[in-house]
């Protein structure tokens, strides 16, 4: 059952830039489901993988500040839709719990900035929230639009399912598949569903980053997928942005919240559907909202 007070929403930087369609569709989906979201006040960047590569103390303190703001006494869970943000928050909790010297460092930082401790804050990803708090059956009952986009390759990426196993299991996760099936979409058996997209490599060692994504897309297409669906803004960016460089047919790469939001009767204009680059024509065709199916 969803918490009656809803969730504290930690967007992260990507949701305001390359991943804006994820934020739009997430907000619209939660509006349709009647689940309140409140944005975490004055949240800061999670530090992603770069901070951890430069300085561990600062990397953990970035997340510690966000967690401290979230410990507002309301008992609401934090919802973190970006896999990198989710992992940064979870890793901070985990490091503080298991390493006394790290805990001392983090507590010193919080004290110096007059920030309260963050014990007891729960960090969650929307995939797991939708799966556990709303549930597959409840979603199935709310479907008002038929899926027309062909078979889906559910791509989970890395940091949401590894190294922590709370969002889904690390080997062959199925929760996104189950949600897609619940709204009438068939999913393929996709062995590369947790193989990494390379993160920021497309921007640094471009050919290597693109090659990783090309392998992911080719395999999805070979297994008969008409589109790919992701739960992370960086995965979506990498898979969507460079298909023209790969040769082969383009396949659309959507967020799971776009598919769910549309199936549950969300406003087609508020799902960020015009923001995809690959397969934009197919997306326009699938999501054309007709009068007779509008709930």
């Amino acid at each position, binding site marked *: 059952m969803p918490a009656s007070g809803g969730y504290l929403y930690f967007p992260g930087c990507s949701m305001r830039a390359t991943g804006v369609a994820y934020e739009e569709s997430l907000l619209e989906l939660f509006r349709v489901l009647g689940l309140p979201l409140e944005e975490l006040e004055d949240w*800061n960047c999670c530090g992603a993988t770069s901070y951890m*590569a430069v300085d561990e*103390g600062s990397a953990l*303190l*970035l997340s510690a500040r966000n967690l401290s703001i979230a410990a507002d006494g309301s008992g609401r869970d934090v919802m973190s839709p970006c896999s990198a943000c989710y992992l940064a928050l979870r890793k901070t909790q985990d490091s503080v719990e298991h390493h006394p010297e790290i805990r001392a460092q983090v507590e010193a930082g919080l004290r*110096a900035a007059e920030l309260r401790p963050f014990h007891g804050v729960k960090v969650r990803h929307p995939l797991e929230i939708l799966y556990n708090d709303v549930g597959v059956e409840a979603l199935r009952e709310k479907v008002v639009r038929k899926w027309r986009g062909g078979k889906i390759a559910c791509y989970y990426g890395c*940091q949401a399912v590894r190294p922590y196993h709370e969002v889904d299991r690390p080997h062959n996760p199925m929760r996104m598949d189950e949600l897609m099936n619940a709204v009438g979409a068939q999913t393929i058996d996709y062995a590369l569903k947790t193989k990494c997209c390379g993160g920021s490599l497309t921007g640094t060692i471009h050919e290597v980053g693109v090659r990783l994504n090309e392998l992911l897309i080719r395999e999805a297409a070979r297994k008969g997928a008409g589109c790919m669906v992701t739960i992370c803004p960086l995965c979506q960016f990498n898979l969507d942005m460079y298909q023209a460089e790969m040769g082969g047919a383009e396949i659309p790469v959507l967020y799971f919240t776009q598919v769910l939001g549309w199936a549950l009767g969300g406003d087609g204009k508020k799902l960020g559907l015009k923001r995809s680059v690959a397969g934009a024509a197919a997306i326009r065709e699938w999501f054309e909202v007709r009068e007779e199916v509008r709930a």
Partner: protein
Amino acid sequence: MKHIARTMKYQREADPEWSARFRELPGCERISSCIQCGTCSGTCPLSIYMDHTPRQIIALIREGFKEDALGSRTIWLCASCYSCTVECPQQVRITDVMYSLKREAIREKKYPARFPIPILAREFYAFVRSRGRNSEIPVVLRMALKSNPLVLLGMVRCGWNLLRTGRMSLRREGIKGTAQLEKALSATKEAA
């Protein structure tokens, strides 16, 4: 003629004390338990591009070949996907080991010159420290200018696609609590 160099190391070139210190860092405690099975290298999506595979990096650390481990491109190619960490039969937290190597390589300026990944990490670090949030465009620009400005040419199409689909943030992102954040970050330095 191709440059001929010795590819094998002598034992006296190793630094066992460094190895012992490194293995005590948080997350690196299980390095000694490695059985050199190579599962990490097999599961790594990037090992085919690395100069030393993850298994070899662990072996280098264990023997104390500090310069080779810190100077390797491997640690920067690691995208932190945690596949090795999850699959390791000996619970070596290889991703965390890579992070520890990255930090030491940056501290000691041992990373390969003009290699864009550590440059991106440092630029990202400085930008977020001053603003509290990341803005992709200025950070990517700074990385390119300090590594290889020609890569910007290859980014033109991506930039145009982001712009026309409304996915490029042109605002100056930032937080109100930058002073508070700086206090917290400086205090951890002193506590460490």
